[in-house]
Structures are given as C-alpha cells and as structure tokens.
C-alpha cells in the first residue's frame, strides 16, 4: 500500500503559561498575524481545558498537536498528520533540557526575561521546524560561544 507522503514538518511551537499567556511562539509556516493570533487563542483554550493524565496528542483541525506541561508552562507543537508523535514529544523534552542547562533549573521567569535567549537556543536546536543539532553539548557550545563573543566585545580593553 503506497501512501502519498507530503512534506511533513513542524508547523509551529508555542509556550504558554497555565494562565494562558504566550511565552514563546515560533512559526515555521507562513501565516498572517491575524491567523497566528487566532490559532494561539483557540489552541491555548483547547489544551488548558484538558485534564492531566490525558493523552499528549490530539487532532486539531487538520493538524496533530503534541503537548506536555512542565511546571507552570505548557510546551505545544503542531505537526502534520503523518509525523511521529513520540519523537515530537522528545523534541519538546530536549528543548526543555537545553533551557534548563543554559539557565540552570529554568523557570518561567527565565524565559520571560530572556526571551531572546530562548529563541536563540531554539534556532540552534530546530531550524525551519526540523532538528538541526540534537546533541545537547553541541547546541550549548554554540550558544556559549556567542555569549563569550559578546563578553569579549563588551569588556573594556586592557593592555
């Protein structure tokens, strides 16, 4: 049986709090600002209405949603129908690990105050919705190198 495969990839990733506040949004497909707002609103509502212990996957419109809650934050990815749910769940977990390692026991506030860092780490890990580098060590090395570059640039030059 030949299934016709289409391009599959992650469509977007959202991080939001239990109060429904968006903390990070990454869109891998072109959508208008209005569509993005509507999707985020609808999806956040749908997920917050779900009980704990429920399945981490749900069909939503023509997409598959994979989500997991870490403390006060929900991490939620939209993938396509034929994508692998479990590996997506572990993409979320690896991202959480990266944040945790970088910030040192990451909490919601870290992501609020350093949102740009959260984006940079995500870009090193996933690019265009596909895994770019799955090694934790390599991702963090890239980010720390950047931090180092900046510190050098800002430190007063000494002789």
């Amino acid at each position, binding site marked *: 049986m030949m299934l016709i495969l289409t391009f599959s990839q992650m469509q977007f990733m959202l991080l939001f709090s239990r109060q429904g506040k968006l903390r990070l949004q990454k869109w891998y497909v072109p959508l208008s600002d209005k569509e993005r707002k509507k999707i985020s609103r609808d999806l956040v509502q749908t997920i917050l209405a779900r009980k704990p212990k429920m399945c981490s996957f749900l069909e939503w419109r023509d997409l598959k949603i994979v989500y997991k809650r870490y403390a006060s934050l929900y991490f939620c990815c939209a993938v396509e129908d034929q994508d*692998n*749910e*479990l*590996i997506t769940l572990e993409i979320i977990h690896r991202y959480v690990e990266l944040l945790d390692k970088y910030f040192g026991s990451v909490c919601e506030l870290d992501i609020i105050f350093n949102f740009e860092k959260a984006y940079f780490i995500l870009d090193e890990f996933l690019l265009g919705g596909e895994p770019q580098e799955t090694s934790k060590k390599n991702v963090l090395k890239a980010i720390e190198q950047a931090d180092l*570059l900046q510190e050098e640039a800002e430190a007063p030059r000494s002789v």
Partner: protein
Amino acid sequence: MPAVSKGDGMRGLAVFISDIRNCKSKEAEIKRINKELANIRSKFKGDKALDGYSKKKYVCKLLFIFLLGHDIDFGHMEAVNLLSSNKYTEKQIGYLFISVLVNSNSELIRLINNAIKNDLSSRNPTFMCLALHCIANVGSREMAEAFAGEIPRILVAGDTMDSVKQSAALCLLRLYKTSPDLVMMGEWTSRVVHLLNDQHMGVVTAAISLITCLSQKNPDEFKTCVSLAVSRLSRIVSSASTDLQDYTYYFVPAPWLSCKLLRLLQCYPPPEDGAVKGRLVECLETILNKAQEPPKSKKVQHSNAKNAILFEAISLIIHYDSEPNLLVRACNQLGQFLQHRETNLRYLALESMCTLASSEFSHEAVKTHIETVINALKTERDVSVRQRAADLLYAMCDRSNAKQIVAEMLSYLETADYSIREEMVLKVAILAEKYAVDYSWYVDTILNLIRIAGDYVSEEVWYRVIQIVINRDDVQGYAAKTVFEALQAPACHENMVKVGGYILGEFGNLIAGDPRSSPLVQFNLLHSKFHLCSVPTRALLLSAYIKFINLFPETKATIQEVLRCDSQIRNSDVELQQRAVEYLKLSSIASTDVLATVLEEMPPFPERESSILAKLKKKKGPGAVSVTELEDNKREGGELNGASERGPEMAAVAASNASTPSPSADLLGIRSAAPIGGALTSAGSLLVDVFSEAAPTASSAAVNDDGFLRDLGQPNESSDSLLVESSGDLDAAPSSEDPAAPLSDADELLNKFVCKNNGVLFENQLLQIGIKSEYRQNLGRMYLFYGNKTSVQFASFSTTVSCPGELQGQLNVQTKPVEPLVEGGAQIQQVLNIECLTDFCDAPLLNIKFRYGGALQNLTLKLPVTINKFFQPTEMTSHDFFQRWKQLSQPQQEAQKIFKANNSMDTEVLKAKLLGLGTALLENIDPNPENYVCAGVIQTKSQQIGCLLRLEPNAQAQMYRLTLRCSKDSVSKRLCDLLAEQF
C-alpha cells in the same frame, strides 16, 4: 527584580519587562507600552546618533511588545542597521527582529539581503550561521531568488564547518519548500545524498530532512539514498547505547536520526537489491526485538524514544506491505500496547493498528484484539483515545464481526461526544449496509440509529435505507412492521417519521391484514405526528396519504377530510397547499385505475455508490484511510449524480408534480421528467417510447434515472440500456437482440480511465466488469473480468468488441470469444489485443449479451482506450521544451481550454493524474512553479506525434487553463477534450 538575566544583560529591558508584569490591568499595560513606544520613537528620531547597545536594547523592547500581541510599525530600519554591526549580539538581535517581524517591504528586503550576503561571504562561521538561520526563518521568495544558488555551494564545499553545513541544509530545505523552482539541485544531487555518510551525526541529522523532502519530489534522482540510508540505519540500530556519545538520548542511540531514516525509506518501494533488503529487514527485526527487551531506564524519555523508532519502523513495514511475518509481529507488538498503562501508547497503538487492519496480511491478526478495542471504546477517559478506538473498530470490521461491532458502536453512540456523533452515525450506517447479510438486521440498525442519534442522522442515511428497502422486496414487510412499531413511541425523531411515512405509504399494505395495524390505525398513527413536523416532512406525509387512498380505499373519506380542512388546503406554505389541493382533486376525479397507475409502487433505485460513503469521504479526519479502502472494495461505478443524491423525497416531489395535470412551473424545475413509474401520462416523448416498445416493463424501465442526463440526440437507447439496470424479470423487447446503444454514462466511464489503467469499468446489480490494461509503444493488452454477482447462472454469455465508423481504420482490436456460461458468483476473463494504427478520437464499443433468469440482458459500454494510452514519456530540459513549444506555434496545433476545477486542486493529486496520463511530468521548466508541464510522444503504427502540455491552475479562482501543442492538429484537440474532464 529577579536576577534572571544572563549573558548580555540589558538592564533597561529587564526593568521594562518588570514594569509590564507589575501592571494590574490591561489598561495599565497598554498605557505603559504606549509610553515606552513614544520613548523609543523619540530616541530613534532624535538628533543624537544612538550607539549600538541602545539600538539593540530598543529593538529588543519593540520585539517584546510585539510578542505581547501589540502592533509594531516602526523600528525595522534600526533593526536592519544592527545587521551590519560587527558586534555579534547586536547582529543577533537584529536578525531575531527581522525573523519575527518580517515585512515584505521591498526596500527593506533589499537591505536585509545585502546584509545577509555580507555575512555569508564573511567566512566567519557564527555570522554565516546567523544569516542562514534568518533565511530559514523568513524563507521568502525574494530570499530564495537571492540565495538559492549560493547555499548548495556552501552545503557541499569541502572547507565548510559542520555547524554551517547543518544550517545550510535546513535553510535550503526551507527555500525548496517555498520556491522549488528556484532550487536547482542537478549537479549537487550526488554530493547531497552522500551527506548521509558524513562523520558528523549532526550533519547527517540536518541533511536527512533535506534529502527526504527532495526524494519525495524527485524519487528517481535520489534513489541512491536508499542503500546509504539502510547502512546508516543498520549501524545505528546495532550500536551499543554509548557508541554515539552525545547523540544517544536516554540510552537510545540517535532516535531522531533513526526516525528520519525510516521515514526517508517510506518514500521508496522495498529495496530491489537482495543484500540491502536483507540488511533492512534485519534492522526492522532488531527494532521489534528491542521493544521486547527490558528497559534500560525507567524514565519515560527512554521508552518514548525507543517507541518512536518502533512506530516509525511499523509505518515502514505497513508501507511495504509485503512482509507478512513483520506485519504480524508489528500487530502483536501493538496489541501489547493496547493495554499499556501509558495513555499515549494506547492512543498510538490504536492509531497504528488502523492502518494495519487494511493490509490483507495483518487484517486477521488485528481482529483478534477486538475485545480490547471495544473495552477501550467503553472505558477510556480521554475522548481522543475513544475516537481512535472507534476508528479502529470501523477499520477492522468485516462480515465475521460486523454485528458485534455495529452493536458496540450503537451503544457507544448513546454517550458519545457530540463532536464525533455525526461521523459515528455515518460509519455505523456504512458498516450496516456493507455487511448486511439479512436486511432485517440492516433495517433494525438504521432505525436504532435514528432512535439513538436522530439529530445526527443526515439525509443521506435515511434516503439510503429507503432505497434499499424499495430495492429488496424480501425486507419490505419487515420494514413496514418495524417502522410501525417504532412510530408508537410518543416522542419519535422527525427522521423516523419521514422513514415511517415513506415506507408505510409504499408498503403499509403488507401489514394491513393485522387489525392492530389496519389501514386506519396506520393513518392515525402517522397523522398524530403531522403537526409536530417541519414542512418537508409534512409534504412527505401528504404524499403518503394519497398513496394510502390508493392502497386502502376505506381510508379515502377520512383522508379527504384531512386534506380538505383549512389548515391543509389553505396552508400558507405553497408546497403544502399545492399538494393538498392536487391530492384532494386527484383522489376525487381520478378513477381507481388511473389512481393505481399514478401511484404505483416506486420502481427500484439504480444501484450506485452509497451516498453515505460519499458523505463520509467529504468529512475529513481519521478513518480517511479506511474509507478509501472501503471505497475500493465497493463498486467504483457511477458518479454521484444519480439517484443516490436525489433522495426518495425528491422522487416524491416529482411524483406529486407529475401527477399535476397543469404544468406548474416551479416544481418542474426539479428535474421534472423524473421517471417515477410507468404512468406519467403527461411526461413527454421519452415515456411514449417506453410504452411503444415494451409496455409491461415500463415501470422497471423507468428505473434508470439517467434518462434526463442522456444526450437526446441518440434515440432508442432508453429502453435498451435500462434493461440492464433493472433487476431482471423482463421480457426481451424484440429489438434488444441488436447490440444496445452505449450506456448514457459510457463517456463518464471513459473519462474515469483516462489517467488510470485498472479499476471497475461497470457494475450493476447483476454484473461487474473489472479492467486491467497495459500499453507499450503502439500496442496494448487489456484484461476484462466479468463477474456474476448473482447466485444464478448467466446463459448465452457473449461479448463483441467493435470499432464503429472511422475507428475501424485507426485501431485494431482482437479477442477470442468467451465461455457462454458464467456460473453464479464466478468470474471469467477476456484478453484484448489492441494496436493503434493512427491517431483516433472515438472509443471501441464492447457489447455484452446474456440471459439471466430467461431475460435477455443487453449492454454496450465504451472501452477506455484513449489516444493518451500510447504515450511514451519524454524528458527534456527547459531550453528544449521551450524551443519545441515555439516550433509548434501554428494556431491549429494548439488547443486550449479554460475550465472550472471539478476535483481537488491538491498538487499531489494533480501530479498523480498527469503521470497517469502517460507523459513525463517535467520539473523546473515553467517559470511559475504552480504550473505543470508535460511532454510525450504518441506512438502509432503510421507515425509518432509529439505532444507538449501545460496546465496552469488558479487556486483562487478554482480554474485551470490547459494548453496542448501537438505535431498533429486533431490530437491537440482530442487530448484537450479528454483532459479537461479530468481536473
């Protein structure tokens, strides 16, 4: 303020974020933001030049404000300025701003592209990566135009750093998805495929996404990736958990890469090379074995990663559908998961088993889990899991377990989530029909459906039960009895009243002998529901009443009384009033004979694709696979234009209309010539023909409601082709020894096979004709399979193939006679050899004659031999294509049509059709990537005819423009006509 800032602390930003967080109300937040925006605007506009740090800080604040959901309409220029900063973090913030707030302001794009270009050529890997990330994040066409040429070079260059390669691969993937026409892989293909062998696992991980996507679109060019992927996978699968160091995730070696490799292999059929195949099967077995090993960690991440690979491996096994052993093992593994304590695994096992159910090798194995699945349907707490269980039950249903599954689904319906009820109803209705052995069970099931979930029972469902009851006289009495009982309920659903009204009107006489359901009792029962019903139902009931007058003269006075009362005859609804007036008049002036003729029993409906199936197909979502599967099993015959859409109610309306002596224009609009019985004395010449030819069969003849779809230019065909459609107790009309004229929908049948070679050519209640064909150069061979669907022998079975008119000199078709007897349930085969002498337009005719229960059946079809079958695909470059296109520029060489899309405009569907046409589908030829161009040569004995095709879809308008240029004028036109029907 918490000390959470790390790296480049931007104190002002942290203070601002704190302020926002401290705002007590939305208004306060907006106020604070407006103040900040004013401040930033004044800084940007001020005379003093801002230093890099301030610029970065303000741009970052704007970004934060935007991400809070507010509009930002300035600051883009400052962000672009940051791109050319030589400080990394300033550049980084600039790029982030651009990525998030991309604006297709052309002036800005030019500047951004300039900055990107500088960074790409900087040879500084961190800068290069930033630039590549930006391209991948924005992925606009302008960027594709600027960089699609450069990035493949970076990707394969020997001196590129690994991290840059990774970014370049995914960047290229994004551009390919946006603008496939601009990404020319050509010379790079082989080097890109060999990235699968790269030493750096990160490079392989990034590259494989690109390779998978490119393979999907150009499988032939990338097929060398199969053996590379297999050996990579084999190395990972057999490695110890520590071998891959940081690429091992919770003791699972390279799970992401493994999944991607298995996914890549799903773009291809099983490897032909025995060694490669053997190695792959070994990998799949190892993966299945590992699932049985004790876990190396208790962490859920370990089992998730392991099972992610397992599920992907199972997908591949299902995709190949050729290894019974692996399929059954996969099924057993999933069976274990069905009872796993992790909800996620149960969900996935149910989902994955759904596809296994459709494989012939694993269908039986899936069925063994029926009890577990039923239990899941009853006990799962999460509706999405229950939905999966319902889908799986539907997929695993066959004749052996249909009654059990339908019963479980019905009882689930009583408590089912509202969101899925309609779909459940359709599924129950389909299963009940598909696997009905005795039709009383079918009737019970549908009536139960209406009782349990009446609101969700769509018209299609209750139309269908009526079609089936009308077509099967063995169930009519039972149906009448059952609806009569169902209507006893004080509150019954309106759909029940509709079915009841219709069935009692037709078959109430079958139960009228019992005094408990005497005619008057039946009438009073129906009429007790009348006032609670909507207008369409009341109209239907009025028609039932007039049928009662005909069936039971003793009810005439009572019913006339009802019709005569003001609430009917002066009803404010025109339709109801008209029916009341007309029925009253009809019952008073018509003699019993006339009345009996006008209100004769409804003729059987032609067998068509179930209308419910069509409805379910329209509904998206899970179960879609099994629907397709189901559809394949079912007859493919017929478009949905026939009786199935025109439900019984329409027929009733038509009946009421036809019985109207005066032509009432408004009702005539509804296909007023609808043949609803033999007695439409006022209905025009079509029926006059019927009467003159075979009066006793008139009512059966009227079965074929294709009558009004027929080209009136071909008289004489009505009676002949109708014979075939009807169920059989027909006397042969004198003329029917001659081959019948082609079925009216023969052209439709022909169109179905333009882009495909196999399928069901024709099907009615008696006979199914399947077809398989293959073509090479100007020769073709066609296998016809005639299946006797009844349990009775077909006698004097004979078939004739003819080439009418000028086709005789154009096409040479040879065959041997078939066996004259076809036993009930048997199938016989016939082989046709076809030679194309020169180009042609018409199709050869296939006439089939046989006796069924003494009646001669005579049927003529068009054989789907069309000129495009003799195409040889021709690959050519863009340059060659346009050169030839120009050479074929005489006006008569071109044929063009602009037409509305009748089918899905989905790219994959279109491509499949164009490939089915027989031409080569040429990529990267047309400057507009939305367009399709094809090239091929038609091989005939006398000459070769070159053809070029261009199809331009306009998704917005749902239109196509189709242009053909061929070296022979008549071919352009013929192909254009054929193809215009396909999209």
